[in-house]
């Protein structure tokens, strides 16, 4: 009979942590979404998600998440590609990766304050642009406390996260693949379209899903930056937890359940696309 190894003891804390802080709270949310305050089954909470304000908040959250994930992927990929296969000097890579490691974890109130201090109405960069170059970005329509302001702020940690994840994948592209394609007559564009990007596609998809989820669940940065002026789902939810706006905890459960569904659907799409993209892998 196969004995249970002592090695399993090492992962007990992980499973205990996951059970206590992920599985049980998630089950509590899902169950709560289908209960009224008296604990009886109801669909009224889910029906409440169709109110215009909540629908708008989901729409804004998804838009911000998509925008930051797409831009984060594109800009981060370009930067990583420049470092790995561009003509940049070798010493650029180490500081960039170190900075990315720090910046990808720099979020919440400090990040919001940093952006207010630099790109707020009287921020350092805003004032320098106005005084040195006569450019008033606020007169041109920019507002830090807006969709694009939040997107820009999120990009501060989204781009470095992309760089951290995609750099090893880019380094995994063999020089011989490019040379083989080239000597067979392929242009640089054909090599990227037919060889490099399909090979990288699973990594790109994974990173995109991670960036989307990273942005979709972020609350502290958005709350510290915009207060309640930009109603994304986490802020609505946060307000619900504080109990000073909606005063309906079970509607809050339903909103959290909605977030789980959106994230779940995004991950499902990711899994399906990745399995198709990885047909060639063993």
């Amino acid at each position, binding site marked *: 009979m196969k004995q249970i190894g002592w090695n399993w003891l090492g992962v007990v804390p992980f499973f205990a942590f996951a059970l206590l802080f992920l599985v049980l709270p998630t089950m509590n949310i899902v169950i709560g979404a289908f209960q009224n305050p008296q604990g009886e089954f109801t669909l009224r909470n889910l029906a409440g998600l169709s109110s215009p304000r909540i629908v708008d908040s989901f729409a804004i959250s998804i838009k911000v998440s998509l925008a930051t994930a797409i831009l984060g992927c594109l800009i981060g990929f370009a930067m990583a590609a420049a470092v790995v296969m561009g003509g940049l000097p070798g010493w650029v890579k180490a500081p960039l990766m170190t900075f990315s490691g720090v910046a990808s974890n720099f979020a919440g109130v400090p990040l919001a304050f940093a952006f207010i201090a630099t790109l707020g109405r009287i921020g350092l960069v805003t004032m320098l642009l106005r005084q040195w170059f006569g450019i008033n970005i606020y007169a041109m329509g920019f507002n830090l406390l807006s969709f694009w302001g939040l997107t820009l702020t999120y990009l501060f940690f989204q781009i470095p996260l992309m760089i951290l994840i995609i750099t090893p994948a880019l380094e995994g592209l063999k020089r011989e693949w490019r040379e083989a394609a080239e000597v067979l*007559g392929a242009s640089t564009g054909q090599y990227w379209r037919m060889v490099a990007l399909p*090979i990288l596609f699973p990594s790109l998809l994974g990173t995109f899903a991670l960036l989307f989820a990273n942005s979709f669940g972020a609350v502290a940065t958005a709350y510290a930056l915009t207060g309640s002026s930009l109603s994304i789902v986490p802020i609505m939810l946060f307000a619900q937890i504080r109990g000073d706006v909606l005063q309906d905890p079970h509607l809050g459960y339903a909103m959290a359940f909605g977030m789980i569904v959106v994230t779940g659907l995004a991950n499902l799409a990711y899994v399906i696309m990745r399995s198709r993209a990885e047909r060639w892998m063993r």
Partner: protein
Amino acid sequence: MSFLVLDHLRKSFGPTRVVDDFSLSVDKGEFISFLGPSGCGKTTVLRMVAGFEAPSDGRILIDGQDVTRLRPNQRQIGMVFQAYALFPNLTVAGNVGFGLRVAGVPRAARADRVAEMLALIGLPDLGGRYPWQLSGGQQQRVALARALAPSPRVLLLDEPLSALDAKIRLSLRNQIRDIQQQLGITTIFVTHDQEEALSISDRIVVMHRGIADQTGTPSDIYNHPATGFVAGFVGTLNRFSAEVVDPVAGHVRVEGADIALGRLLPPGRVTLAARPESLKVAPEGIPARITGVEFLGSVHRLRARAGGAELVLDRFNAPGEALPRPGDHVRISAAPAAWLVLPE
């Protein structure tokens, strides 16, 4: 006129010159091997022909066209890499048809050509597999088919057998030679394995420190090495320090034994050398002591010591023939024509 001309090629990486004044003319359909140790510049020359490295000086002409400044995708060259370099995201058919696809060949014509190439390499039924589903030997055959599919003007093989085990290496090298002769394609084969180079080449270029030490047929290279390096690198060589006693008559003295070579010699001291299969135990010759006898199947390898020199003698396995034993004192000689005379 030669089909492929490498004209006074030079290549430096920073202050280091890795290829120096390398010239070679290759006829159409010829199979040329670049043979040399690691770092001798053979792969760099190959990469210059492919267009992956730009020469610091010199020209490369293919069929009269100067391709020195052309990009690799404009040269119509096929190349097989040491580590296969198959595209992992494409099937075998996708890999073989890649060059045709980027050239815009219609799907039907492409499929025909892919089938033809897969039949040529003996893998007609594996078109739907991915590279990871193939053995190393199969992958390298697919890489060969991929390189040949667009009908390149020149085929470059960069140590294509190095990553394979001995048995596969032998069969694949024969297959490469058969296909090359069947298609009549001009081929450059880079290797550090002398047996490979000797067995399949029309001509061999032995490279050393960025220059071509000697270019010749396998027989020339083996039997008449032009330099001490070529003599030592290609095949096993027994060397003796010899004193020239009569330069005109061609007499030398080694370890007290007089040897008549019957050819003009430089005065002073020379190095006398002979291949293991040329040396024999004889009544007259250089005194030596047998130190070991190995049975290698087709040959017996005798190890001996003569003065300060360690010697190797190969004798065909003839059952029943008496062999010297370790510790025996013998005399060693060779036919006059078998002795190589190298500068001291």
